[in-house]
């Protein structure tokens, strides 16, 4: 409806009262008699839509999409003024795609130019979504390097398909990024996963934003060294959330995050990735470092994503580890899952995408026994016997807010059929539960 009005008004100023009448004279008249006062007020305050007070137009504009705002802004000079009010330009998501590599459209180049020219200083929450094409990532860098007058608080560089920022030349990327680091001075949240960010650029970040930085996500940034991230932890005492790869995690880092000056850490995400079997040696973290972290930040969530080959798990969970969320993207040995039951007392959530050829019964039961905080579990290609699974559910009971297992990996046995599993599990969880089904195609 709004568009209809706008279109009508483009042709010239239309008096609101006249318009009402032209829509439906009888109804309008009847209304006037009933609520005559209201109509009168409207007429005297604003003879036409163009005279609506700024704050009202602004309020309306906040409910409109950018496209609708842009169209509305061409109605009249006043609306056009509102279109450019800084409040409407605090948050922006640049989408940069190439027709050859993406099905999605890009943010229009004219709009990008307009933002750079007129609204760069208003931007506070900015993200760039780029497709798998290098040109898209380069375009994002070009925009970044033009944001010289900005006070950005949140910056996200997001590859929606392949990580294309990795294909941009490192110097181009780093110089663009440091433009924002240097100019913003009040960055609080940064997500730069899968980018060629390096130690020197992190130093620039710290030098300019150490008081404000609260969140830093930089998983899979191969050019950052443990020393680089340590520098961030040492200086940015307000840092509450951090995501990085395991090779950057060190005892020193955990201790730095646990220093007295540092606020409580709330979220630590660690990706453990290996490229080729046997080629990556994984170090271990001392129990005393973990302990220091938990003493300092008792509520911290420690999230670990594993993408390892079975034989690479040796250094992990041999001692007590305060991990809360565990995701295993590849097959895990029974041995490893057994250690989790023994050494992960803070475990809240566990996802195992696959395991070897033997059912996981005992391991699950041990986890149920020892991981008293476990509230969510997801099992992919993990064979479990129905009896073993039932036992696990019985032990966990209602505290399992999430229970996900594929129907096809539950092995029916003498004690339970699939139908019984459904009703028994539902009983223990206190809600209707079904195993995950895949379509029989």
């Amino acid at each position, binding site marked *: 409806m709004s568009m209809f009005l706008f279109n009508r008004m483009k042709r010239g100023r239309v008096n609101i009262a006249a318009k009402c009448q032209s829509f439906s004279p009888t109804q309008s008249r009847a209304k006037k008699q009933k609520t005559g006062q209201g109509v009168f007020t409207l007429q005297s305050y604003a003879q036409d839509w163009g005279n609506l007070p700024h704050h009202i137009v602004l309020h309306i504009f*906040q409910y409109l*999409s*950018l496209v609708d705002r842009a169209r509305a802004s061409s109605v009249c000079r006043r609306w056009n003024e509102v279109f450019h009010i800084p*409040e*409407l330009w605090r*948050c*922006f*998501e*640049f*989408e940069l795609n190439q027709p050859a590599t*993406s*099905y*999605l459209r890009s*943010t229009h180049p004219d*709009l990008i130019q307009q933002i750079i020219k007129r609204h760069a200083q208003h931007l506070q*929450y900015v*993200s760039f*979504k780029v*497709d*798998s094409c290098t040109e898209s990532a380069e375009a994002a860098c070009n925009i970044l390097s033009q944001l010289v007058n900005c006070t950005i608080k*949140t910056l*996200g560089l*997001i*590859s929606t*398909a*392949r990580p294309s920022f990795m294909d941009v030349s490192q110097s181009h990327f780093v110089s663009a990024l440091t433009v924002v680091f240097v100019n913003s001075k009040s960055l*609080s949240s*940064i*997500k730069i*996963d899968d980018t060629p960010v390096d130690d020197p650029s992190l130093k620039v970040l710290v030098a300019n934003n150490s008081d404000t930085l*609260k*969140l830093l996500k930089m*998983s899979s940034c191969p050019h950052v060294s443990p020393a680089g991230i340590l520098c961030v932890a040492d200086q940015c005492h307000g840092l509450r*959330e951090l995501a990085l790869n395991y090779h950057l995690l060190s005892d020193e880092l955990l201790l730095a995050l646990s220093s007295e000056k540092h606020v409580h850490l*709330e*979220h630590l*995400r660690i990706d453990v*990735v*290996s490229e080729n079997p046997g080629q990556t040696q994984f170090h271990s973290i001392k129990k005393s470092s973990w302990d220091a972290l938990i003493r300092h930040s008792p509520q911290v*969530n420690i*999230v670990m994503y594993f*993408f390892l080959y079975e034989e690479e798990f040796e250094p992990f969970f041999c001692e007590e580890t305060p991990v809360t969320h565990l*995701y295993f*993207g590849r097959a895990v040995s029974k041995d490893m899952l057994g250690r989790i039951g023994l050494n992960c007392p803070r475990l809240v*959530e566990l*996802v195992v*995408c*696959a395991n070897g050829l033997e059912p996981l019964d005992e391991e699950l039961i041990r986890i149920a026994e020892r991981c008293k905080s476990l509230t969510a579990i*997801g099992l992919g*290609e993990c064979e479990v016997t129905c009896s073993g699974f039932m036992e696990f559910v019985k032990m966990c009971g209602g505290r399992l*807010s999430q229970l*996900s297992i594929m129907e*096809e990996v539950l092995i*029916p046995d003498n004690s339970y059929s699939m*139908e019984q599993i459904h009703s028994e599990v539902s009983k223990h969880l206190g809600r209707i539960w079904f195993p*995950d089904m*895949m*379509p*029989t*195609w």
Partner: protein
Amino acid sequence: MAPNSIHWFRRGLRLHDNPALQEAVRGAGTVRCVYFLDPWFAGSSNLGVNRWRFLLQCLDDLDSNLRKLNSRLFVIRGQPANVFPPGDAAIKKLAMEAGVEVIVKISHTLYNLDKIIELNGGQPPLTYKRFQTLISRMDPPEMPVVSSALMGCCVTPISEDHGDKYGVPSLEELGFDTEGLPSAVWPGGETEALTRIERHLERKAWVANFERPRMNANSLLASPTGLSPYLRFGCLSCRLFYFKLTDLYRKVKKTSKPPLSLYGQLLWREFFYTAATTNPRFDKMEGNPICVRIPWDRNPEALAKWAEAKTGFPWIDAIMTQLRQEGWIHHLARHAVACFLTRGDLWISWEEGMKVFEELLLDADWSVNAGSWMWLSCSSFFQQFFHCYCPVGFGRRTDPNGDFIRRYLPVLRGFPAKYIYDPWNAPDTVQAAAKCIIGVHYPKPMVNHAEASRLNIERMKQIYQQLSRYRGLGLLASVPSTHNGNGNGIAYSPGEQQPGTNTPATTVSSSTVASGNRTGSILLNFDNEENQGPSGIQQQQQRLGKTLICVSLFRLLHKGGSVTGKRDRESERDAEGEDDTLSTAHKLQRQIAEITSVHAASGNQSAMVIGYQIHIYANFMDTVNHYKSDLFFPVYFPTDELDEGHIS
């Protein structure tokens, strides 16, 4: 005078349980069974030869079964879209204008899909569980119709040159090169279907186990008891299958009420039919209200490697080879290759995979194919996405010995079981001994699966987090939820509200709080569909009356290739224009006149061309997919396009 009937075979390529055919015969003086076939198109593509062969075998079988009843099948050369407009309503209208009464019978689905939707408050159920709940509240499906003495005293006028004019063409006639074409693993036809169902039931009775069979190395191979292509082409009535299963269960188990799981495969089919029936954009991402918009990569080279079995992952390549050679793969094998193409490894749109299946898979049904692809790519139907099938481990668990690989990829025959799923890890000596050097005789893996799955799981999470802002799906987010409403979910801002955004800042956090924590989780916690306010979901969809019957076998066969795509669009456009419709009407009349006048000329009938009363009987079709997308916008998952800064 008894009316003259035409039975139009489209999907139900059978004589048994064919209510439309029975109706056509009842009280009619003559009956002609017709099938439309476009010989021009077939020749232009060498793809899908298995599907063409299956179809021709079905038609051959129909013809020979009709011969036994002193009748014949009339195969009419020409594209039905040119003869008839798409959309059964249009066909009905045209027929009416031509003085023809059209009678439509449901026999391709167990249930009346309208009833299911009605029972669900006007929308198709979006979870299988919900679907099961609905149908358990419904009356059991109707019994198949019994057709003893099918033709009654109805005759079919047959001219002497019937074979030339209306015979079933051969593959060669359609332009296929059949030299070296191996014999069909899945022979088409109703007769074969009826043999198979008996075998199928015998085996079930023998094992006396009605649970879903567990997958093993053997189940990967085509089974002589497999039925899916026969259901797809309607050589086998789903109702016949349903009732035979019920009877057997009662006999073996001695209990009266079989569980729904007994009918698993049939019900999944029904589920996707229901989901698709009011959604003409069901096979697309854009404009499909139930499909999540995922920023898939456009990558024709990678897609081609997948489709041509050159991914370098033997498990994937063997499955794709089997699909191309035989036209069928096990459903878990479908999951494996579909996951690999989409959210698992290549991050390529499910629509691309669906098109390849459409060309190669004998049982690819429009609704089931699109629905399953959406399901597998986590684009719809609310399933967990935390798990991807591993292109190495999944196969190894299923067939540890690797015999399946050796059967379809002889080049890898020499590898020991230890390396056959990841031959690139085999030492050089092993590769040399196997006479297959990876990178020379067989490709290296096209992706690093660990890396790809790490990236992709992040992408999926990103998308679902962004969606949860709109829909409050209760996703357990690994990052603080999007308090700031900027959609990327990264700002550190508990309690800190940023002004100037469209979305109220608190909506998402409340749904996340329900999970007890706001970190780490990659498990989805979707609201029960029943609890989701029905508002919005598909309300914008125009309800398509169930009188619409369309998708002819024709379209289903041809939707794959780009050539077809164009033709489809053209035919749709044809149908849109008033004038074209008129000319189509004339064509219809001409066609009808042609068929009938042949026989008028052959002297069997009195001259009757004008005002000739013909009944066209057709089986009920599942889905109508000819409607333009403009009517819809993705209400279900609002596009971020409008919110996030696109300007058109």
